[in-house]
C-alpha cells in the first residue's frame, strides 16, 4: 500500500473530518432512523435533522426552512440553476462569470439550448469580475446572476456585494457559490446579498457526499430530483442524516475557528510567495489583496504541471495542478484561460487549518530542484522533437 502524503497542501480539494464531525457522524450512524416516520426512532432522527439544519442555517445567516440539503456543492449548484430555470416564466436570461466552477457553468450552458440566453462575463488578469462589465450584462429579463464568493483555482475573492446590487436593481437573483469560503471566511446571506447560496461539506471538514443550497423566499424553484415530499418538495430522496449531522458539526466548528487562523494562513502564504520569488520564471496567479488567505496558485513556465505534481508526490507532498496537458482531449483550465494567464505548469497550494512553516519549507526545499530537473527534461524532449523534425526535413 502506498503511504499517504505526509505534507497535504490541497485543502481546497478536500479536507479531513473535523473531530466534532467525526463524533457526530458516528453517533448518527448508530442511531439510524427515517426522519419522515412518526414513531420514536423517526422522531429522534427528525430532531437531529432539524437541529443540524438550524446549525447550518445559523452559520450562513439563513432561516432553517431556506436550506435544501444535497449530496454536495455540485448538486446544490445544479439544483439552483436548473431548478430556477424550470420555475421561470418571463425571465429567460442568465449571467455567469467565466470563472465559475463547472457545476455552475455546465447547467447554465445546458439551458442555452433550451430557450434561455446565457451571458458569460469575463475577468481581469487577477481573476476578478469587473462590476462595470457585469452591469452591462444584467438585463431586465435576467433571471439569475451567478458569481462565486472566491475562485476555486486561484483564490480570487469576487465583488459579490456589488453583483448583488446590480442583480437586484434589475429584479434578478444572485447565486453565490461559497464552496471555497464556507468555514474559512465569513459567509452571510445578508452580508453577501445572496438570494441563493451553494455550500459543500467536504471542503469544510465535513464528510464527502454532503452539501446544501440556501433558497431565500424571493426565489421560486422546481426540484430536479423528484419522487417524494422531503426537503419541502425541493429535493426528493432520503436525507443523509449522518452526513448532515457531521457537516453541521464541522461547519459550526469551522465558523468559530477560522477567524483565529487568518493571520497564520496569511503568514504561510507570504512565506511561500517569498520562496517562489526565488525560483526563476514562476508566475503567481490571482489578486494580491482580494484572495483567500490559505491558497496560493502559480505557474512554473516551461514545465508540465502534472509532471511536477507527480514529482512532488514522490517526495510525499500533495498539491493540485490545474493543467491537464497529458491528455490531449483535455482543454486548458477555463479559469486561467479567462484570466489570460499561462495555463501550463500550473500548481495550486492550499493549506489545512494546522499547516505549519515546516510544511511550506518542505515544499520550498524540494520545489526549486524539481523545477530545474523538469525544465531539463522538457529541454531534452524539445531537442528530441527538433532532431526528429530535422531528420524528416533532411529526407
Amino acid at each position, binding site marked *: 500500500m502506498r503511504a499517504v502524503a505526509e505534507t497535504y497542501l490541497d485543502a481546497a480539494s478536500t479536507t479531513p473530518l473535523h473531530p466534532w464531525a467525526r463524533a457526530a457522524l458516528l453517533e448518527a450512524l448508530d442511531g439510524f432512523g427515517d426522519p419522515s416516520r412518526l414513531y420514536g426512532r423517526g422522531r429522534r432522527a427528525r430532531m437531529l435533522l432539524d437541529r443540524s439544519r438550524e446549525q447550518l442555517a445559523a452559520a450562513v445567516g439563513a432561516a432553517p426552512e431556506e436550506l435544501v440539503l444535497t449530496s454536495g456543492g455540485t448538486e446544490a449548484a445544479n439544483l439552483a440553476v436548473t431548478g430556477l430555470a424550470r420555475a421561470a416564466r418571463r425571465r429567460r436570461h442568465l449571467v455567469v462569470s467565466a470563472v465559475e466552477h463547472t457545476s455552475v457553468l455546465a447547467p447554465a450552458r445546458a439551458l442555452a439550448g433550451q430557450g434561455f440566453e446565457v451571458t458569460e462575463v469575463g475577468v481581469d488578469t487577477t481573476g476578478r469580475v469587473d462590476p462595470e462589465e457585469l452591469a452591462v450584462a444584467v438585463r431586465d429579463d435576467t433571471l439569475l446572476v451567478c458569481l462565486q464568493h472566491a475562485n476555486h483555482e486561484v483564490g480570487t475573492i469576487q465583488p459579490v456585494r456589488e453583483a448583488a446590487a446590480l442583480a437586484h436593481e434589475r429584479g434578478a437573483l444572485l447565486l453565490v457559490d461559497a464552496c471555497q469560503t464556507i468555514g474559512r471566511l465569513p459567509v452571510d446571506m445578508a452580508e453577501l446579498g445572496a438570494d441563493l447560496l451553494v455550500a459543500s461539506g467536504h471542503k469544510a471538514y465535513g464528510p464527502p457526499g454532503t452539501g446544501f443550497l440556501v433558497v431565500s423566499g424571493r426565489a421560486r424553484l422546481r426540484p430536479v430530483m423528484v419522487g417524494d415530499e422531503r426537503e419541502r418538495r425541493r429535493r426528493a430522496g432520503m436525507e443523509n442524516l449522518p452526513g448532515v449531522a457531521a457537516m453541521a458539526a464541522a461547519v459550526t466548528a469551522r465558523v468559530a475557528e477560522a477567524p483565529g487562523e487568518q493571520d497564520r494562513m496569511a503568514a504561510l502564504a507570504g512565506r511561500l510567495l517569498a520562496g517562489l520569488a526565488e525560483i526563476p520564471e514562476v508566475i503567481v496567479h490571482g489578486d494580491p489583496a482580494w484572495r483567500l488567505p490559505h491558497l496560493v496558485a502559480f505557474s512554473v513556465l516551461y514545465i508540465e504541471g502534472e509532471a511536477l505534481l507527480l514529482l512532488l508526490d514522490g517526495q510525499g507532498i500533495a498539491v493540485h495542478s490545474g493543467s491537464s496537458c497529458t491528455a490531449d482531449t483535455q482543454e486548458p483550465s477555463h479559469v486561467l484561460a479567462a484570466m*489570460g494567464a*499561462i495555463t501550463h505548469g500550473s500548481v495550486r497550494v492550499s493549506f489545512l487549518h494546522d499547516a505549519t512553516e515546516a510544511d511550506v519549507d518542505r515544499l520550498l526545499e524540494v520545489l526549486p530542484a524539481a523545477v530545474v530537473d523538469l525544465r531539463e527534461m522538457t529541454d531534452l*524532449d524539445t531537442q528530441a*522533437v527538433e532532431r526528429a523534425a530535422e531528420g524528416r526535413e533532411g529526407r
Partner: protein
Amino acid sequence: MTAAATTVDCLGLACPIPVVRLARAVAAVEVGGLVELLADDPGARVDIPVWCRLKDQQLVAQDDRPEGGWVFQVRRSH
C-alpha cells in the same frame, strides 16, 4: 509582408513544448526577426499569446489553420 524567418512545427505536441520551442526560436532570431509557430494543442492557443505578453514579444498574427490548430507569428522585439 516579409516571409517568416523561422518556422516551428509543433503540430501534435502538447504544452509546454510549443512554448519552449517558441522561446528558443525567438531567442535564435535577430531582433525584428519573425518566428512562425504551428500548434494544435488547446493549451497553446491560450499560452502562446500570454507568453508573448509576459515576455514583451510581439504577437503579429494568430490565425486558424484550415487543417486544424493555429498559426502564430511572433516578432522578436528586444
